[in-house]
């Protein structure tokens, strides 16, 4: 790297040979106005507003600082009359085109322009090309381009149609110096369900995330859409960003496995009468949890979609639980988390809280006390399943509110309760991929999809597959203390297995009597564990009992009565048959 000496407005400095002049000026703190320049894209040099005067070997010329490569010994003057005259006229020309752009008017002010000599045009685009270049060079979407030539030149999309290649990244609007480009609401939606979706493509999943590091969201990252961008990589000084990283499949040899794949919340839209997805201010408990989280998107405030604070909030229990239409079982945790949210929401917003419940199930240490505490807090509890949530106002006090219609089974009357926000306490259900996991581990599932333990009382964390254990909500709805306890048990079982270092084989393996085997090899391919091999010398099949898991399929197939299974010999089973049939 070759260093050269440059003088800017009398300030002497050193810079790498052929660095763009504007960078050097910035370094020494000399401000040069720019319009078509942006650090993320190559210099374009069309607005000419960054024109400066360069003296080199007695030669004086005007150059544009954004793309002029400095060479040794040049002297730069950024405020000479000639320079100012040039910039002034350029601004006047620009105003003749875009007369009402605030930025241009401010700049014009700096050059003493009050009334431009060519009048003021109504356009807002100065054709600086930043949007075009960002779209192609940075984003890689290549949606924007220049059309026509000369005075009729304009920026647009192919055929002036909305382009399906546009990924609504908003970069063009971001860089547009005149505010000519804006992103409309429709495009906002594409950025994910606000306010709870990821705000940017790079974020730290949760404040509790382990490891506590930012991740790149594959679906929203521009690079994975267009293979371009990589802006993050260019600005990251630590050079920590590697878009090349791929998901890896790793095979790990283990002695035992604990399956704790958890649950998924019931989709609140399965209970349409509560209006989730239809009314903006109907939230699921998880969304509100996210909201009240101090590190969440709302910094812990409880806000309605329009940003205001709710005055009344209704919490509906048993959404997707204890319901023939969804799940008949009780999800066990909803009552308590509903109480917690009731407490927090009241605390954060001071709103009046209504709980709609079927039964309060506050079994657990300190739980009932918490329930009583809330009663004292003035939180209202209404027993009865909510019929519907609607925005249909019948009285003035119901206008612009969400009305919760419910039969109060204690008061014995149907009530209409207007609230600003509705929280749905959704139940727990088995993950949708539970069945795949079950097959993978050769386990069984209950009809609801929860993994089945070997025995409800005698082997609560074991499964039918040796060495595979289950813990947590994957086995059934339960709260955190129960989960932790069960997890401990499962871990202990797993440890025990590893500790002994050896496994006991079940005694019901099969065997083959060589004298009887004719070597027909029917049995060989039947064995899923390849415990049977054909002995080429003796021309008979031989069985390795260490590998045999004792299914007995080979025994049933052996036409020579050569294969038999301990505890399940033909004779024994025949005897059983006779046994069960004696009168």
């Amino acid at each position, binding site marked *: 790297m070759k260093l050269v000496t440059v003088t800017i407005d009398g300030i002497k400095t050193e810079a790498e040979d052929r660095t763009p002049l504007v960078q050097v000026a910035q370094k020494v703190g000399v401000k040069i106005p720019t319009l078509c320049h942006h650090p993320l894209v190559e210099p374009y040099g069309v607005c000419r507003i960054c024109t400066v005067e360069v003296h080199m070997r007695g030669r004086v010329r005007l150059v544009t600082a954004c793309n002029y490569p400095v060479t040794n010994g040049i002297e730069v003057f950024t405020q000479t009359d000639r320079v100012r005259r040039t910039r002034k006229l350029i601004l006047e020309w620009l105003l003749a085109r875009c007369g009402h752009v605030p930025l241009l008017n401010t700049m014009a002010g700096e050059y003493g322009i009050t009334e431009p000599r060519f009048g003021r045009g109504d356009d807002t685009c100065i054709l600086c090309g930043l949007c075009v270049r960002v779209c192609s060079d940075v984003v890689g979407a290549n949606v924007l381009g220049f059309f026509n030539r000369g005075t009729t030149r304009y920026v647009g999309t192919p055929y002036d149609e909305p382009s399906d290649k546009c990924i609504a990244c908003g970069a063009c609007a971001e860089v547009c110096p005149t505010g000519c480009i804006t992103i409309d609401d429709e495009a906002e939606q594409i950025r994910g369900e606000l306010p709870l979706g990821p705000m940017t493509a790079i974020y730290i999943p949760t404040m509790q995330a382990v490891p506590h590091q930012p991740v790149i969201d594959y679906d929203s990252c521009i690079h994975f859409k267009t293979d371009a961008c990589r802006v993050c990589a260019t600005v990251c000084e630590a050079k920590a960003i590697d878009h090349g990283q791929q998901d890896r499949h790793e095979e790990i040899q283990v002695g035992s496995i604990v399956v704790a794949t958890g649950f998924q919340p019931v989709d609140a839209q399965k209970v349409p009468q509560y209006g989730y997805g239809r009314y903006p201010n109907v939230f699921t408990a998880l969304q509100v949890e996210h909201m009240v989280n101090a590190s969440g998107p709302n910094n812990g405030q409880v806000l309605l979609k329009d940003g205001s604070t709710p005055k009344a909030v209704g919490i509906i229990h048993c959404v997707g639980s204890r319901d023939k239409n969804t799940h008949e079982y009780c999800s066990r945790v909803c009552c308590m988390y509903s109480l917690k949210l009731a407490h927090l929401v009241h605390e954060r917003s001071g709103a009046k809280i209504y709980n709609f419940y079927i039964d309060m199930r506050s079994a657990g240490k300190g739980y009932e006390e918490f329930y009583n505490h809330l009663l004292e807090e003035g939180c209202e509890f209404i027993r009865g399943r909510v019929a519907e949530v609607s925005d249909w106002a019948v009285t003035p006090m119901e206008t612009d509110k969400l009305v919760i219609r419910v039969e109060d089974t204690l008061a014995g009357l149907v009530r209409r309760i207007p609230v600003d926000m509705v929280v749905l306490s959704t139940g727990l259900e088995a993950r949708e991929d539970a069945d795949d996991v079950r097959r993978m581990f050769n386990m*069984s599932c209950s009809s609801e999809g929860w993994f089945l333990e070997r025995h409800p009382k005698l082997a609560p964390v074991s499964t039918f597959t040796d060495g595979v254990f289950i813990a947590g909500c994957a086995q059934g709805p339960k709260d955190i203390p129960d989960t932790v306890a069960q997890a401990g048990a499962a871990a202990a079982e797993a440890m025990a297995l590893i500790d002994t270092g050896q496994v006991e084989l079940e005694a019901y393996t099969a065997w083959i009597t060589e004298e009887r085997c004719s070597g027909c090899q029917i049995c060989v391919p039947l064995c899923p564990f390849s415990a049977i091999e054909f002995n080429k010398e003796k021309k008979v099949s031989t069985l390795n009992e260490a590998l045999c898991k004792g299914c007995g399929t080979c025994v049933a197939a052996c036409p020579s009565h050569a294969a038999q299974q301990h505890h399940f010999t033909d004779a024994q089973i025949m005897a059983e048959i006779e046994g069960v049939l004696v009168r």
Partner: protein
Amino acid sequence: MATTTIPVTTAFEPRIVAFFCNWCTYTASDLAGTARLAYEPNAPVIRVMCSGRIDPQFVLKALQEGADGVLIGGCHPGDCHYQEGNYKTLRRFRLLKRILTQFGVDDARVRLEWISASEGDRVQHVINEMTDQLRTLGPWHARN
């Protein structure tokens, strides 16, 4: 064993021999028990580790010994504890069925059912249903 307690009444009570896979149907019937699901006592269960162990000879033997029906319970396809045992069962069963028809055994007398460990209610249902069918069908061993 349950069968011994069948009262010898004049009314015909079918006798079913049930072969259940240890990992699914057998557990399911256990579950049915823990769930206190009552069902007909006509089907004493013979446990095998896998429905794949069930030799067609057993079915014939049962019929020869005077059973009026045979019920085989295995894991749903794809769920076999031994990966593929139940498929082998299925193949044998389909072929066996053809032979039984030639021997004059009514279709309802020999059944193959896939019942997972969680389907206790299904065990109840199947056994009750089958018992009813056999009651109407009459005894097998009395056939000429």
